[in-house]
Every structure is written in C-alpha cells, then in structure tokens.
C-alpha cells in the first residue's frame, strides 16, 4: 500500500457498494441508445440477405426496388466495395492462420444464410424493407459445408478454393511425456464432449448511425459498441479517411457481451452509404437479422482423456478441440482466439505436468463464430471439470477431495501451467474451501442421499476455474490488430472544483463509470458526487482499448488511479503556494486542501477559483497544471489471471428430462474489489448467461444450413422464473502488477457455470449409471443419456 493511498479507511469509496449514479437515468427511460438518435436528413438502411447457406449470385436486378417510394439508393456488394476496402480476420501471432479477404456485402458468392448482399437506403426503415422485397437476385445454390467434423474430409465442399481445404487454424501444445503418463496410470477416463452454438442476444440489437460530412471529409459514427478507438482505426483505414477525422461515439449500449466488438458488413455498408449519399444513414438490426448475423459462439467438439494414479493425482490431460467458425474469421479479432484459449486454459487450475492439446479451426457455411463473453473459458472449464469428476468417480473419491488433491497449492506461485500460462498469484484452495463452506457441502450431500431415497434426483456440481483478465499487448497488438492494450485517463480540476475524468474504457451497464468515479474520489479525497466521468467518445477520451477481456477495472482503473495521484500532486503544489507551506505537509480531505492532521486549509473550489480567475495571487514563476493524463499497461505478465470456484445444485426429472437449477454459488477472486455489489452482479449475470448456453440456448441449423430458430420465441434465453438465486462471495488477492491491485470479474460467471451445471446433472444421473456429454443439456439430451429415447 502506498502511503498516499488508503483503501481501507473511512474516506475510501474503493471497497464500498455505492449505487451507480448513471442508473437513475436508465431507470427513467432517459438513456440514449443509437436508435434513439435522430439526425437531419437521416436515411435508414435495410439489407437483402442470402437465403442460402452457399450460393452463387448469377444476377441482381435492383431496378424495381429503386423506383419504390422513399428509396434513395440500392447498393450491391460491388457498389460498396468501391468505397470500403476488404478486411482479413487474421492475427499474425496465431501461426499459419488464414482467412480470405471479406467485403461488407457478398460479391459473387454468398457463404452463409443471412450474409448481407444488397443494401437499400430509404426515408424510413419500413420503406427500405419494402424495397428489399423488390430486389431480384438469381441464385445458383451450391453444396454447403456445414458439419465441422467433415469439413476436412477428402471430397468436402471447399468454401475458399484458393486454400484447397477448409482449414482456418491448427495448433498443437505438447509438454512431452503424455503417452508415458497414460501408460502408467491407475485410472484413465475419456469422453467426447460437444458444445452447441449459441449467441449473445443483446437486448438492444447491433446499431450504427453513420454521419459523413463531405465538407470536412469527416465521419461521426454513433455505434452500439465497446471499443471506440478500435472502430475508429478500422473505419478510417477501410473507408480511406483520416483517422483523426473519424469520431466514434458510444453512448448507452444495451448489452454487448463481446457481440458488438467485431466488424460487421452491414455496419460497414451503412458507413459506406453515408459517404456515397453525403447524409446520415442509420442501421439497426431487427431480431431476425441479429440471429442470422450477430456472431455465434462456442460450437466445439472436444475429445478428452485424463490419467490419474491410484490416490487420485492427475498425471496427464489430453484434449482435441475441433471448432467450426463459419466461412470467414471475424475481423479484426479473428475466430481462432476461442480455440486458442481452450488449448491454453483447459486444466489450468491443476498441478499436473503432462499435457497435450490439439486445436483445429475449420470453415463452414454457417454464420461466423467469434469471441463472446468468457471466450473459450466455458469450454475449457467444462471439459476439465467433467474429466476431474469422471476420474473422482472412477477412483471413488469425493469431487471436492479430488480438487483439494490436484489444485495448484496457494503457496506455489508464481508458476506456469503446462500450456505456458503464467500465474502471478491465485487462490484455488481458499476459494474452494470458502465455496464448500458457503454451500454447506456435507449437508447438501446428506440431503441428496435422503432425497434420492424418496425418488428426487438432485446433483451437486463443482467447478474450479481460471479467468484471463487485464490483457497485455500479447493478446491482440502483437498479432497486428490495432486494438490498444494500454489505456489512459485525463483528469482535471475544473473552475467549479469538480473533478472530470475521461477514460478510454467504456460502459455497457457493468458499472465502469461508477468504478472510475470511486477510484478518482478516493485518490483525490473528494466526494464521489463531485466527480464526472466521460466515456465512449474518441474526440473526448484518451486513446484506449475499451472494454473486453475483463480489462476495464484492472487497466482503466489503474490509469485513473495514476492520473488521480498526479493531479493531487499538482493540486497540492498550488495549495502550498497559497498556504505558504511545503506541499509535503498538505493533503486533500473531504474536498479541502488541508495541513495534514488539521482542518486548516482551503476548499478545492476556492483553490480552483484562484487558479482560473485570480492567478495574480500566485507567484509569477509558478504555473499551475490542473489537467493531467496518465496511462497504464500490463507489463509483467501476458494476462493477469483470476480464479474462483462455482457450485451448482440441480434437480433432474428422469421422466421428462427437464433440469432445474435450484441454486448456484460462486467464490471469485478478482483481486482488490472496488465495488462488491457490482462485482457480485457481474458474477450473477455472467452465471445466468453461462447457464443459458448450457441449458437452453442453441442456434439450430438444418441439413441445408438454414437457421431454424430466429426469434426470441424459439431461441430460449433464460427467464426469471427458471433461474435460481446465486450466492456470491469474494477472496481478495490483489495483483502486484498495479497499485490498485484489481483484476477483472466480467467473465468469471459465464466461464464457470456450464462446467458446474454439467457436473451437477451428471452427479444426479450417476444414480442411473448415465451421463450427459453435450450442451445445451436439453430434455432430449437427458432422456437420451437415460436410454429413454
């Protein structure tokens, strides 16, 4: 702890569950989402999308559409390609990865059902949609490559002829000694697990309002997103504009979860149309096109083997992950990061030394797959935790004891996983022990046995997990993507005495602005109500990465802390001149510059008045600086890992196959907790999102590559009535990579829940000698496991 910082004291906002100042605006319906913004001469764009999974465009006739009421422009892929350069979703540090150039709208061939093909700009969205129906496209349907398992088989339809096959990326991790470890093992368990496609379903659909000003050659894009500077760099480079003349504004964002961090052809086309038509163009996806074009997530088949000795010590783990990512790797973050994460993270909580993992990423004619909340973590955790439970059962060990035996000891850090992940300081055992106490695990076990005698089938599942947070440049920057890992904060003391903090990290409701204000108020010794936070505008905030990989608190928060310290130093320099003392004898407390240990001094308001209006009262050789900027990046580690443990109590109905989650518990260690309530709510919301993907959410395709469920009536997101209460507790191991000590918490819930749930279901099914190995765990999956269908 720095002498300047007191997070434990009564004046600290850090560590307190203060309410979010920006929540009231949203609770009154006074938010401003992109679709709420109306500009003069604004047009609306709608898209004709491919009805086929794979088809050649023989001809496009737009003549009838162009004559429809209100229509101002009908643009084909070729028209848009004249304005917007293609993009390639490849990261150079993922060796051998490949993906072809992608255009906003399909040119000769459409490669998934839902790919945008023709854009219609009209006076209203309704008129644009009317005209879409009048666009006539002659299609030649082509054979589609849909099944990832068969994508690399000889004779498979090759989606991009220039590549010769459908391979996007392959990676192998091998510590050596795996075969020897398996040969000498007392217990070997193996399974093939599958994880279906699901998607983010942000309640506010993807939205882009592009406003090109031809006189300035400038573009202002109001975007529902989470990485404004990334968007600025991409729009400028693809549209041929000066980067500093592209402004991205992200006001309120109605959920993002990673969905809105990618580049989509329809959004790029809206920007291109704004340039072509020299007026504002708005695109807001409807729910149908959200399902067809928002990135999908997961879609993995993992073969896993685990070897253990007689006492239950894990000797080796082997996985083979196959994932289908659609016809293109998403730009600019790629679609191989999820598989790469699965390889890096699987088994990461445990102390075995032998590990072999193969990851294969293939193209297919389905909607592109890419990063969604907790990228790779749900797969990695579910696979490892399933195998740990399988081994425990084979050796007649309790699952909690199996974990106690194998989790990396809390005093063994720093250390490195067999896949090369570097851990600074984790707390698996502390989290597990707190979890079993919170669950009252022995009593749950006793209750489970008693209920089973009454024909009630409950299962208890545990999952220990790690989470990638606070990423360094090793995540994207090193691979050539223009995505900042550093972040900044510009902080100023205004003439009124208020503190204004502008940050490069963004708010989507998780509480970023609140967390920033808590840190700023604490460091500066002012009331939180005196702090105003600015986010989401590339013209107004320092260059930063935005919000992804659970980086806002850990990286954005540290930049705020450093800016606060620098501004405080400058303020005290001014105070010293006014109070005719040395700065070292001064401090700021409750908004006043005071002599330490006394209340003697002056308010920040008075100090600011002197600086801004009555500078003549200051020494002539002294220039106050009440605006500072500080930046921060993670330097010591590629990522700063967090860890935790989740527990699940679920009940299955062996007659109907229905699974009911009765209760979830989570103990999470995200380092220093800035706002316990906000962390808990991130965990809860994340757990429910994880449970959704593990229980009900599924993008179901037919054999021709048609997505069968494109409404919220038949794609099932969790509802209030079927979700449990979730108990959350904290362990705090502050990271030493920053003064603040905070790590991320946004993805821990989603990362751990599917594994805990599957273990609970299988714990219940064990009484029947059955187990499930695929998600979502729908009733038919359970009934099939029970041999009933």
């Amino acid at each position, binding site marked *: 702890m720095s002498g300047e910082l007191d997070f434990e004291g009564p004046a600290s906002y850090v560590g307190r569950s203060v309410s979010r100042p920006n*929540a*009231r605006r949203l*609770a009154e319906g006074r938010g401003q989402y992109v679709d709420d913004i109306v500009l003069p001469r604004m047009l609306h764009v709608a898209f004709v999308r491919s009805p086929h999974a794979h088809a050649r465009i023989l001809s496009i006739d737009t003549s009838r559409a162009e004559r429809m009421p209100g229509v101002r422009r009908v643009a084909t892929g070729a028209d848009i390609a004249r304005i917007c350069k293609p993009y390639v979703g490849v990261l150079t540090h993922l060796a051998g990865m490949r993906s072809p150039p992608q255009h906003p709208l399909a040119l000769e061939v459409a490669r998934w059902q839902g790919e945008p093909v023709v854009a219609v700009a009209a006076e209203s969205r309704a008129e644009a949609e009317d005209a879409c129906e009048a666009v006539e496209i002659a299609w030649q349907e082509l054979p589609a490559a849909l099944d990832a398992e068969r994508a690399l088989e000889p004779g498979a339809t090759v989606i991009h002829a220039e590549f010769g096959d459908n391979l996007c990326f392959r990676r192998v991790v091998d510590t050596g000694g795996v075969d020897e470890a398996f040969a000498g093992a007392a217990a070997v368990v193996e399974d093939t697990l599958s994880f279906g496609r699901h998607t983010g379903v942000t309640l506010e659909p993807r939205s882009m309002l592009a406003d090109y000003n031809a006189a300035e050659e400038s573009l202002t894009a109001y975007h529902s997103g989470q990485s404004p500077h990334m968007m600025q760099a991409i729009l400028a480079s693809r549209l041929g504009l000066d980067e500093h003349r592209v402004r991205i504004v992200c006001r309120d964002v109605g959920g993002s*979860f990673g969905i809105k961090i990618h580049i989509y052809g329809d959004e790029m086309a809206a920007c291109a149309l704004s340039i072509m038509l020299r007026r504002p163009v708005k695109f807001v996806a409807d729910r149908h096109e959200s399902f067809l074009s928002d990135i999908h997530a997961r879609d993995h088949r993992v073969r896993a083997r685990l070897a253990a000795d007689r006492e239950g010590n894990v000797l080796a783990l082997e996985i083979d992950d196959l994932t289908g990512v659609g016809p293109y790797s998403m730009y600019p973050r790629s679609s191989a990061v999820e598989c790469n994460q699965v390889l890096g993270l699987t088994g990461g909580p445990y102390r075995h030394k032998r590990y072999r993992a193969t990851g294969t990423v293939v193209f297919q004619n389905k909607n592109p797959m890419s990063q969604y909340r907790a990228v790779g973590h749900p797969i990695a955790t579910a696979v490892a935790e399933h195998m740990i439970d399988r081994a425990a059962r084979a050796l007649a060990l309790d699952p909690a004891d199996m974990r106690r035996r194998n989790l990396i000891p809390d005093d063994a850090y720093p250390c490195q996983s067999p896949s090369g992940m570097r851990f600074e300081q984790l707390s698996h055992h502390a989290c597990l022990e707190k979890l079993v106490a919170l669950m009252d695990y022995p009593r749950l076990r006793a209750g489970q046995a008693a209920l089973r005698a009454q024909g009630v089938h409950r299962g208890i599942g545990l999952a220990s997990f790690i989470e990638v947070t606070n990423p360094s440049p090793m995540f994207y920057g090193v691979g050539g993507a223009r995505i900042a890992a550093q972040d900044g904060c510009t902080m100023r003391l205004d003439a009124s005495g208020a503190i204004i903090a502008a940050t490069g990290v963004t708010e989507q409701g998780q509480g970023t602005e609140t967390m920033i204000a808590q840190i700023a108020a604490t460091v500066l010794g002012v009331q939180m109500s005196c702090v105003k936070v600015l986010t989401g505008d590339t013209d107004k905030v320092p260059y930063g990465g935005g919000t992804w990989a659970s980086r806002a608190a850990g990286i954005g928060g540290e930049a705020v802390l450093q800016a606060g310290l620098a501004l405080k130093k400058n303020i005290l320099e001014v105070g010293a001149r006014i109070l005719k003392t040395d700065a070292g004898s001064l401090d700021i407390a409750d908004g006043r510059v005071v002599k330490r240990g006394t209340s003697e001094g002056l308010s920040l308001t008075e100090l600011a008045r002197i600086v801004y209006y009555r500078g003549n009262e200051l020494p002539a050789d002294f220039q106050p600086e009440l605006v500072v900027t500080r930046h921060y990046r993670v330097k010591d580690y590629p990522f700063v890992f967090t860890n935790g443990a989740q527990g699940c109590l679920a009940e299955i109905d062996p007659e109907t196959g229905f699974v009911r989650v009765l209760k979830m518990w989570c103990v999470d260690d995200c380092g220093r907790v800035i706002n316990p309530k906000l962390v808990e709510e991130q965990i809860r919301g994340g757990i429910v999102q994880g449970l959704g993907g593990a229980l009900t959410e599924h993008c179901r395709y037919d054999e021709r590559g048609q997505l069968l469920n494109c409404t919220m009536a038949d794609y099932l997101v969790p509802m*209030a009535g079927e979700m449990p209460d979730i108990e959350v507790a904290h362990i705090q191991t502050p990271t030493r990579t920053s003064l603040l000590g905070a790590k991320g918490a946004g993805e821990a819930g989603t990362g751990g829940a599917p594994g805990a749930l599957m273990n609970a279901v299988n714990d219940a099914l064990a009484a029947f000698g059955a187990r499930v190995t695929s998600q979502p765990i729908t009733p038919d999956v359970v009934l099939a496991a029970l041999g009933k269908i």
Partner: protein
Amino acid sequence: MNDAQEALDIELEVNGEHVRRRVEARRSLADFLRQDLGLTGTHLGCEHGACGACTVRVDGAIARSCLMLAVQADGARIETIEGLSDAGAIAELQNAFVLANALQCGYCTPGMLIAAQALLEADPQPSRDRIREFLAGNYCRCTGYQSIVDAVASVAAHRAARGPR
C-alpha cells in the same frame, strides 16, 4: 399504396396529454411512440412479443407495444416510462432498482419496471417465486434477475411495513 400504408387519423391520450396524429395503418404502437412522439424510453428488443422491453400501459393494463398497431390505440389512454416517471407513479420501484443494482444496460428496465408495477397492483405481497413467474415475460440479459427480484420484493416489504396509505 397498399392497405398497410394507408394513413388514418387517431386521437389518444399519451402520458396525460391529448395527441392527434395521422399514422400508417401498419405502424406499431411502439414505433408510433418512439418515432412520432419521441418517447424513446419504450424499447424494441424482439418485435415479436417475447422480450417485454416495449411494455407500456394501455388503459391501465400492461401491453406489448410492438404487438399493437397505433391505430388500435385510437381513443386509448397510454402511459409510458416517461409519463410514469414524471408522475412519480413508480418512484419507489425506481429507487429500489437503483439501490439493488437491478439494472445494468437499462434496455429492459422501462418494461421491467412497468411489469413490476402491474404485479404489485395485482398482488401487493408476492413471494419471490411469484415475482419470478410474473416477470418471466420480461427478458433481462445482464442481471441474471436476482437483483430485480430483490428490488421488487423490497418495495413490497416496505409497503407492508408502512401499511396502507
């Protein structure tokens, strides 16, 4: 022009104000509120009647404004989040939502609050299970719902402790 694009005159009361407009027959009540009246607190999440983000009150009963045509609201009394907020009609629930952090991105929140108000009118002391069941028609993708249940339950408990007004 087809029948759906035909324009009709409607008169209705929105948030206590008399409103007269000419609207296309096909215009949904949600689009009418948002685009014609600028009441953007009513949100569109699915346009399918599933998610509840567009919930408003029509003659005192909650309704999905995406499933109703503006012309069907001719002569009706409509209340949206803006009117209910300004009138203080849901102030207790709003305070409880802020305190419990029962909203994150805020997109579902207007609909959720209006549904919660209807629940408490019908059932002033609902159990947690009843709250969860009633709000099952309003999707929230951020919170996981528990804090919403906490907020609604806290208002019910506070009202019970305070007694009838």
